[in-house]
């Protein structure tokens, strides 16, 4: 017997006939970790998508588009509500810098983000109870002066942080610019009303007809509240400094819209109306003028062409569609007429420097041009009324002086919105005011809790380069267009001009999002890994994990990451999770004895459920 007296040393024990028990899913084939083959490690590193970056309040746009794509509308709504108290409003009125920044714009057409936002905002409006809840009361009181976008936003965030918030509003109705500066056919009043109700549901008190400087003083604010947010906005219209500007029939844009909005307007327009100005308010005024009975509406701008106009291009397009005429490169130098405007005197004009940010030069060498009108609406911007403010907090340009945290000196007063941004270069737009209000609210909270305040963050890694993404995953697809009312019929009514997305449209449009630089749980890395050493905790989220014990560093996942979230980092940069050479070739004596034992025990183990 040749095998008599033979023995297999323990370190050479092998399982029966070399039959090996299966490795486990949890641990992988732990006898053979291959992680030390790697010199580059894939790392998930979310960048800031350009839309999020461009948004005045840094809405997590990519995030909610991704949720909409997956049909998780409520989650998407909750996400948007972190930064934006009234998506139903911005979903209608926003000048959408996000869409301008959208990477898809360089590829085919930008995502219709605003329409998706409106879809979510309307969804939120329809909810019986909002998803947002007030924070645990912290016993502190804050006054927010002004209920426009900035005040609304600050009050909303403060209520979520647990403050007892009182909004002081000088008008009879809350809403500020949202109410008084935006026509009904863009933002129906009941939509705004519902958003104001949401504030009240958060426990915020709104005192209307309460004007600072008149009904409440600086000192009483200081005495009655732990802190104050000043978001009073720009309430006084600018003049064009033309001769005879005080004639009858000359109207200012913002009061014109505000009175219509508040239902207190007594204006009766003649047939021919001129609108002075090239911004969004001017456009709203021109279009509102049509709805108020004007027949011929002409817009007169200093800007030399439509592209220079500081407005949302779609709105300009819609205005022209409704039949408003444009005159470019002209300034009003005089309002003619006998007590009442009959005509305007126009001279060629241009900006002396940068468009919309430098004084206007008027060329009076050329003979004046006469332009006959029945009414003229002047919409060339606003300024503040700050008589009540201590002089030390006033700036030369007529705004409130704040530090880089939004704070007035070392007081517990903060300011936000147009009142601080006037002349700062930041467009005076709703979403920017919302962002301001949000940031100031957080800093106010920090100040009261004695924490260090945070200046506005500058994005450090914004994906803009399509080369950082894998464009093979993105076929060209056209933007989903929002339906609109017919221009000839709509211009006579207060009906909302732009129609909402249907659910299908919203999902389709959200689906076009590149998710620039951000993991959106597409599973691509997970599927293409040859090991596979990318673990996924749940199908619905992006919680992937690279099993560094096994990853060989082939970088297929990085190459195939559609969004550019995955990056290769040299292994030498790590000091943890590194697989050492002595364990990488794990076949050290005796290891297979474990397998032999496992195999022998196999029958007593529970069988796999199939």
């Amino acid at each position, binding site marked *: 017997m040749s095998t008599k007296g033979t023995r297999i040393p323990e370190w*050479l024990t092998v399982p029966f006939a070399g039959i090996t028990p299966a490795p486990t899913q949890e641990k992988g084939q732990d006898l053979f970790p291959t992680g030390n083959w790697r010199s580059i490690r894939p790392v998930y590193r979310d960048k800031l998508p350009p839309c999020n970056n461009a948004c005045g309040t840094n809405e997590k746009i990519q995030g909610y588009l991704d949720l909409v794509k997956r049909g998780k509308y409520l989650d998407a709504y909750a996400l948007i509500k972190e930064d934006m108290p009234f998506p139903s409003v911005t979903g209608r009125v926003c000048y959408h810098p996000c869409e301008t920044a959208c990477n898809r714009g360089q590829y085919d057409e930008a995502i219709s983000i605003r329409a998706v936002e409106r879809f979510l905002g309307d969804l939120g409006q329809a909810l019986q109870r909002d998803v947002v809840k007030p924070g645990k009361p912290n016993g502190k009181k804050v006054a927010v002066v002004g209920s426009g976008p900035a005040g609304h936003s600050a009050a909303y965030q403060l209520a979520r942080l647990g403050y007892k918030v009182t909004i002081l509003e000088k008008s009879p109705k809350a809403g500020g610019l949202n109410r008084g500066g935006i026509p009904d056919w863009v933002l129906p009043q009941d939509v705004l009303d519902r958003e104001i109700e949401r504030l009240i549901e958060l426990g915020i008190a709104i005192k209307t007809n309460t004007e600072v400087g008149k009904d409440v003083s600086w000192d009483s604010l200081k005495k009655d509240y732990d802190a104050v947010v000043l978001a009073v906005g720009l309430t006084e219209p600018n003049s064009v400094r033309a001769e005879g500007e005080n004639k009858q029939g000359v109207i200012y844009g913002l009061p014109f819209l505000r009175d219509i909005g508040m239902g207190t307007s007594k204006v009766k327009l003649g047939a021919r109306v001129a609108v002075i100005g090239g911004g969004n308010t001017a456009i709203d005024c021109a279009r509102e003028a049509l709805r108020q009975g004007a027949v011929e509406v002409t817009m007169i701008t200093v800007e030399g062409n439509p592209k220079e106009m500081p407005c949302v291009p779609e709105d300009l397009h819609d205005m022209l569609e409704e039949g408003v005429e444009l005159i470019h490169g002209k300034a009003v130098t005089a309002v003619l007429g006998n007590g009442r405007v009959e005509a305007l005197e126009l001279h060629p004009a241009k900006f002396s420097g940068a468009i919309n940010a430098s004084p206007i030069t008027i060329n009076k060498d050329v003979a004046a041009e006469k332009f006959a009108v029945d009414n003229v609406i002047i919409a060339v911007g606003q300024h503040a009324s700050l008589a009540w403010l201590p002089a030390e907090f006033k700036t030369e340009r007529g705004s409130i002086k704040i530090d880089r945290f939004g704070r007035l000196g070392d007081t517990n007063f903060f300011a936000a919105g147009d009142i601080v941004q006037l002349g700062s270069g930041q467009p005076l737009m709703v979403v920017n005011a919302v962002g301001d209000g949000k940031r100031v609210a957080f800093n106010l909270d920090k100040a009261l809790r004695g924490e260090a305040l945070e200046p506005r963050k500058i994005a450090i890694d914004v994906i803009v380069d399509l080369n950082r993404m894998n464009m093979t995953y993105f076929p060209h697809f056209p933007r989903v267009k929002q339906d609109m009312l017919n221009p000839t019929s709509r211009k006579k009514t207060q009906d909302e001009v732009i129609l909402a997305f249907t659910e299908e449209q919203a999902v389709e449009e959200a689906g076009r999002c590149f998710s620039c630089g951000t993991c959106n749980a597409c599973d691509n890395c997970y599927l293409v890994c040859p090991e596979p050493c990318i673990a996924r905790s749940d199908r619905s989220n992006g919680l992937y994990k690279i099993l560094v014990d096994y990853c060989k560093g082939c970088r297929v996942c990085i190459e195939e990451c559609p969004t550019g979230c995955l990056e290769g980092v040299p292994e030498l940069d790590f000091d943890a999770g590194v697989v050492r050479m002595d364990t990488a070739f794990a076949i050290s004596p005796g290891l297979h004895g474990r397998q032999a034992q496992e195999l022998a025990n196999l029958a007593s183990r529970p*069988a796999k459920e199939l």
Partner: protein
Amino acid sequence: MATAMETIKKKTVRINGCVASAQAAKYADVDVIAAYPIRPYTATMMALAQMVANGELDAEYIVADSEHSQLSIAHGASSSGARVFTGSSGVGVQFAYELYSPISGSRMPVQMMIADRTLDPPGDFGSEHTDALSTRDMGWLMGWSCDAQEAFDNHLMAFRIGEDRRVLLPQMVCQDGFFVSHITTDVELPDPGQVKEFLPPYKHPYPLDPRRPVSHGPQIMPEQGPPLQLERARAMEGCMPVIEEIHEEFARIFGRRYDAWLEEYKTDDAEIVFFLQGGHAVTARFAINHMREKGMKVGMVRLRTIRPYPTERVCETLSRFKVVGVIETNMGLGSVSSGGSLYAEAAAALYESPKRPLIMSFMAGMGGEAIVLKEFYWMAQKMIDAQKRGKIEKRTHWVGFEE
């Protein structure tokens, strides 16, 4: 299990060796059959095809595309937990050669029926044992039957032995082409109840079962080879007591007793013996009777199981005689005896014997020719001459080609 004589329904049928093998597969209730035609074993597969067509046997009957595929199918099916049956002859056995070691190495008790056929060239239908014998070191249990009844019995025993947890090895159950495979004799077919008692269902400990996943046949490092080879060698040696135990069990249930290793015929007082395997034993018995009548002290020792080789038994048994004449019926070109391969193993088994007989090799029954009486006498004479001389003339004689 009731095995009282009155409940047992045996029957005797007149069938040839091929059909006996097919009957054995049927009684064993095989699950998968892998067939490919080559004479003479084909008749077994023809019979099984008819049984499946008739509904007498529920099995997957697969007509493979080659013998290589036959054995691979058998390997795959056995690995999955099915009892499998396949077979071949001659060059067909060789075509499948690659699979013999993997099957025994993975310890799958595949059963293969072989009806021997001469290897090419020449394209000869007749029986030579070289086809199966060439695979003898591949880790398969192997033995020859000498008639259809023994073939039937050996198949059943081989299943039982190979599938025993202590063994788990494939089996080649061989019979001579034509002499056994195509000659009709009486065969007693047992009662199914007896078979049920004797042969429990096949259960490999680690089959390919998704509920308990394992990997069969992974690659190894060189140092892992020896322990696996040693394990297979131990299985081969370790099965010897199991083989004996199962022959006893067979005798108990079926009433037919075989010595697991050797059949001795008229050896009590024999001085010279023929040492052979397979169907030529039947003619040898006749010739021995003839010679005994003339007073010659001649007998026969037939090797029933060549793998594992019963070295001690062969040594002890053959040492009792003066001269051993090995009838090869196989080709061992350029081998130690320049004849066949049985000589070398028998001689090696005898080497340690204190009382070694003279041993010589006869190339007889080659190409499927019957060994006729005259040739037995010729061989006996050569052995008697050597006994007288106390020395062999030469190691190998080509019978029929020498004076």
